[in-house]
């Protein structure tokens, strides 16, 4: 178990992390989710021992490791830009962690090579050991970086935006693959992302961060359905802001014959399995987005439809608590 207690980090007066408390359970797959600059990487680096907090403690299984360097923490770190060693073959990259061990603990060369091949098999890159990183695609490089981190048998795997530099299709494939790999290995893992879809799809629990503080910790279901703050409601999934601090997600509207709010349809297009309607509230000139079952006949632009929220949340404009009115 990993326990963070009151972690604070400032950079020249700027508070990048402010009093962070967090517990990560063994075998858990945890996402750090937040917008750019919210402190995700900084927190991950502090957990790894690549950076050190100004205040607070990091403990692994109850043992204080705050002052311990990265080499002594038994963590695997996967960098956003892979950080593969360009002058080494893929196999040498993967075997690096074993080859730098002290003489007594260092396996013989052939064994390192065999272990590297094994790990490359695991990340589905069997047979590419003799290539150089420059001869691989982005997704392949990312998997080499992962294999390299796993080679030292870490207790904890840390991934900084593991799919950040990849295109949407590759991201999706790798994402699913990483989730399966995690299931198979059961290694405690923390990954950083600013993509809420990625966090919701992969993680057992999601930590939503903003401006160096944790806004909410919960299962994907909880942060999506029960956002603790207006920020979370906004950042995780799409949300319509209605007057009075009311937040309604696009799929949480229902079209009714009478009553409800009149909305003038401005545009309509197919978005996956639903019709996405963009319109304006007649009463407030607010733009609303709503989804309509694609099996129903869609309205046309210019039509007026009447909607009621099936579910809504109100957030006091300046507070952090929410009132459920489902």
């Amino acid at each position, binding site marked *: 178990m990993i326990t963070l207690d009151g972690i604070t980090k400032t950079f020249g007066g700027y508070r990048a992390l402010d009093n962070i408390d967090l517990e990560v359970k063994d075998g858990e797959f945890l996402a750090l989710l937040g917008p750019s600059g919210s402190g995700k990487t900084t927190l991950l680096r502090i957990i*790894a021992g*690549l950076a050190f907090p100004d205040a607070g403690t990091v403990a692994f299984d109850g043992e204080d490791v705050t002052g311990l*360097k*990265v*080499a002594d923490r038994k*963590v*695997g*770190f996967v*960098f956003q*830009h*892979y*950080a*593969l*060693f*360009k*002058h080494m073959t893929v196999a040498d990259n993967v075997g*690096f*962690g074993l080859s*730098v*061990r002290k003489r007594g603990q260092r396996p013989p060369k052939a064994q390192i090579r065999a272990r590297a091949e094994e790990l490359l098999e695991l990340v589905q890159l069997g047979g590419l050991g003799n290539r*150089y990183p*420059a001869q691989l695609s982005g997704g392949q490089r990312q998997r080499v970086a992962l294999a*390299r*981190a796993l*080679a*030292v048998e870490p207790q904890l795997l840390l991934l900084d935006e593991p799919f950040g*530099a990849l295109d949407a299709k590759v991201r999706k494939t790798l994402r699913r693959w990483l989730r399966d790999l995690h299931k198979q290995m059961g290694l405690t893992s923390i990954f950083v992302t600013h993509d809420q879809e990625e966090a919701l799809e992969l993680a057992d629990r999601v930590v939503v961060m903003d401006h160096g503080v944790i806004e909410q910790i919960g299962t994907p279901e909880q942060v999506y359905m029960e956002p603790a703050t207006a920020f979370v409601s906004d950042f995780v999934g799409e949300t319509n802001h209605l007057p009075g601090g009311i937040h309604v997600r696009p799929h949480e509207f229902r079209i009714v014959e009478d009553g409800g709010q009149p909305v003038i349809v401005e545009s309509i297009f197919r978005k996956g399995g639903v019709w996405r309607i963009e319109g304006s509230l007649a009463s407030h000139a607010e733009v609303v987005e709503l989804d309509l079952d694609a099996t129903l006949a869609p309205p046309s632009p210019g039509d007026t439809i009447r909607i009621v929220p099936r579910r809504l949340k109100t957030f006091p404009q300046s507070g952090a608590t929410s009132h459920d009115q489902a």
Partner: protein
Amino acid sequence: MNTLSILRARHLLIAAALAFIALFLVLPLAAVFMAALEKGLEAYAAALVEPDALAAIRLTLLVAAISVPLNIVFGIVAAWSIAKFDFPGKSLLVTFIDLPFSVSPVVAGLIYVLMFGAQGWFGPWLAEHDIQIIFAVPGIVLATVFVTFPFVARELIPLMSEQGRDDEEAALSLGASGLQTFLRVTLPNIRWGLLYGVLLCNARAMGEFGAVSVVSGHLRGLTNTMPLHVEILYNEYNFVAAFAVASLLALLALVTLVLKSIVEWRFAYHRRSAGH
């Protein structure tokens, strides 16, 4: 402008550049070899194997052999700390690294005379302990190190800054020690830039005149490097010998240029293939 006149302008510019290079670089270089061989190969060879010339060549090689490795170490340490760490006084350090470029070599030589000369700050102490720096090999090495200091560091700072800390951090996170990280990750990452800097540093170390001239004392066969030896021969109207030794320096320049082009080509290739 139509394409034709653009084309013509381009040819004109290229021709002007080539003519300039021929007039100011190639022609003088050729003249050196021509003057050296004026009295035939025998006179040329004799000028090179004459004891004072051999002593000058030996001293030049010795000075380069000491000052280049020193500057490799200093250059890497300075570039490393500047590129990879933030510390107070960093910009001051960068300025100091450039100092030898901006100060006249003669001044650089005088600084050492002021410090270590008989009338200098440490002069009496050195005399007491029977240590000779000025008008001796140590002074020449010091002056050369000073003058050539920026070459390696200047080459490495931008390279190391651009590469960032990720590779090193990755190595450390995989359990490598600081030394292992340096030898197996940092050094291979900078090798072409380093080689390039070393070549330039070496060329300057062997060719330096001004600073060395001040501290050397011009003792024939003892403290004369090749450039100083050339000057003495020239002042004695021994043109064939002067140009013979000079041709060796010119040859060094040509070899450096060729090696430099090879390194540059490898360096560019390395960078291209390393693109993310």
